[in-house]
């Protein structure tokens, strides 16, 4: 065993999309998935993650809300976040980055793009 595998939380209300992210990232990461913003905040408060893959458009607490709360929280401030969204106008991207996102991943994305973005962030954070 070399080192502990990085833990990733995948937040998206679309189940197929969560599965796509989890399968794409594969064996190198430990992935947990939740379907809405409230569940994400709950999970983040009880467990620690090396990266959050966050959808923006979700019923109830949106991804942007989750992101803002994370950035206000001392424990979660440094956790890298990749925002994934089908809304990808320059304003949408700017809003995500201003809220504290590290990367913006436009849906639909290429699987190698997802992989390299995640590896870059997790590698840097370690």
């Amino acid at each position, binding site marked *: 065993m070399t080192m502990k595998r990085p833990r990733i939380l995948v937040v998206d*209300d679309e189940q197929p*999309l969560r599965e796509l992210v989890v399968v794409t990232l594969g064996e190198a990461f430990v992935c947990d998935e939740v379907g809405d913003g409230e569940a994400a905040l709950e999970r983040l408060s009880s467990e620690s993650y090396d990266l959050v893959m966050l959808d923006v458009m979700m*019923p109830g607490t949106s991804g942007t809300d989750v992101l803002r709360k994370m950035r206000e929280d001392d424990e979660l401030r440094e956790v890298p976040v990749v925002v994934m969204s089908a809304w990808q106008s320059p304003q949408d991207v700017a809003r995500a980055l201003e809220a504290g996102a590290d990367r913006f991943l436009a849906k639909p*994305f290429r*699987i190698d793009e997802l992989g390299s973005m995640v590896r870059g962030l997790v590698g840097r954070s370690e």
Partner: protein
Amino acid sequence: MSRLSLVARVVVLATAVAIVVGIVVASSLIAILSLRHAEERESQTQEVTTATLRVENAAVNLESALHGYTLTGNQRFIGLFNQAKDAAPRSFNQLERLLPDDPAQLQQARRARTFLNQYVTDYAEPVIVIRGIDPQSARSQVAGTEERRLMAPVRTSLANILNVEQQRSTDRRAHAESVARNAIIVGSVGIVLCVALVLLFGAWVARGVAAPVRRTSAAASRVAAGDFDVRVEESGAGEVGGLVAAFNSMTRSLAHGREELLAQNALLRESEEHKRDLITMVSHEIRTPLASVIGFTSLLLEREFPREEERRYLEIIDQQARRLGGIAGDFLDVQLLEGRGLTLDRAPFDLVELTREQADLFFAHSSHSLDLDLPDAPLVVNGDRDRIAQVIGNLLSNAIKYSPASAEVHVSLHAENGGVELAVADEGIGIPEDDQVRVFEKFYRVPDAAAGIGGTGLGLSVAREIVTSHGGKIDLESQKSRGSTFRVRLPVGGAA
């Protein structure tokens, strides 16, 4: 009165001025005529006076000649006496000719004549005869009682005539003076009245014309500045009042026209916004399933998976591709609805089986729990199976989409007098009362829901169209934050 037209106003003024001028002229004419009449009478009076004096003169001459002769016996006085005796009747004739319509004066003249004749015949001539015989006796007669008896009435009558004429002349002068004074007063008052009338008319015209015109011009400036709500008080002379009324009706139609334009513009802008929102929404709606299709396809192409997983990913791809197809279908349906309407491909089918099939499809990959209440026996309905499937699918996907993960969705189906009723109830965010009617409108989405949840806003409008084409009804019952229940009622036989 204030509504009188300008022409009427001018006529009124002209009439008033003409009446005043007429009164002035008439009173002047009366004064002139009266003065001329007085003048004529005055000259007659003078003639009468002259004639009277001449008679008096004759009487004096008779008396003097008689006295002269009686005292001196000189024949020259006889000549003078005869001269005066001849002159007296001529003078009387002249005087009487001047008094034909004046019986009182005429009577006085005749009385004087009678007494003078008596004086000549009964006194003077006998005295002259006596002088020839007895000068002493004659001399004692002269200036005696008899002479005075005869001469006094003559003098009195003549003096009366003169007095009456004198009095008349004085009266006439006074009357003429008063007429002239009255004419002057009437003339002065007339001039003042004319001036006042013209001034009053000026004020009246100003009130009837100038003020409304000024108001209208001020209003016109405001209209020019874009204020079409301005209205001018409708007063003033007929023609001006008409102008003001026309102005008001013009601004009214301008305001109306602008409102229509603004409304059309708003409508256009709204539909422009709709279109723009729609394009954004569609691109987003397409991207989500597309992400799964592209992602899993790439994974399958690039990596090796166990047979089972491969199959599962293919199922996801299939499902998401169908979802894409559904979105495309919704748009095609909207085009259909906007165009010639829906064509139904009717055939009898079992609604129980269709409901179960749709429920399986939508809840297979959902974290929501399903409470399915279906009758045991088939419920056969005559309708377009694919279209009804679309309606059920739409209601199920809405129930899942708008309620929290792991919430329960209740689906029930039962026969109901002559038809069937399908109910889909969720425990989701609900629909505010104000939006309950609008959710069936094309592209309408409840604002709160639209903020976090994707959707085209087409599903329910298409569903309603399908249900009503089948002769059925769709309605909803909902409470914000409690959940929504959609009920679809379909006739078993289906509408013809």
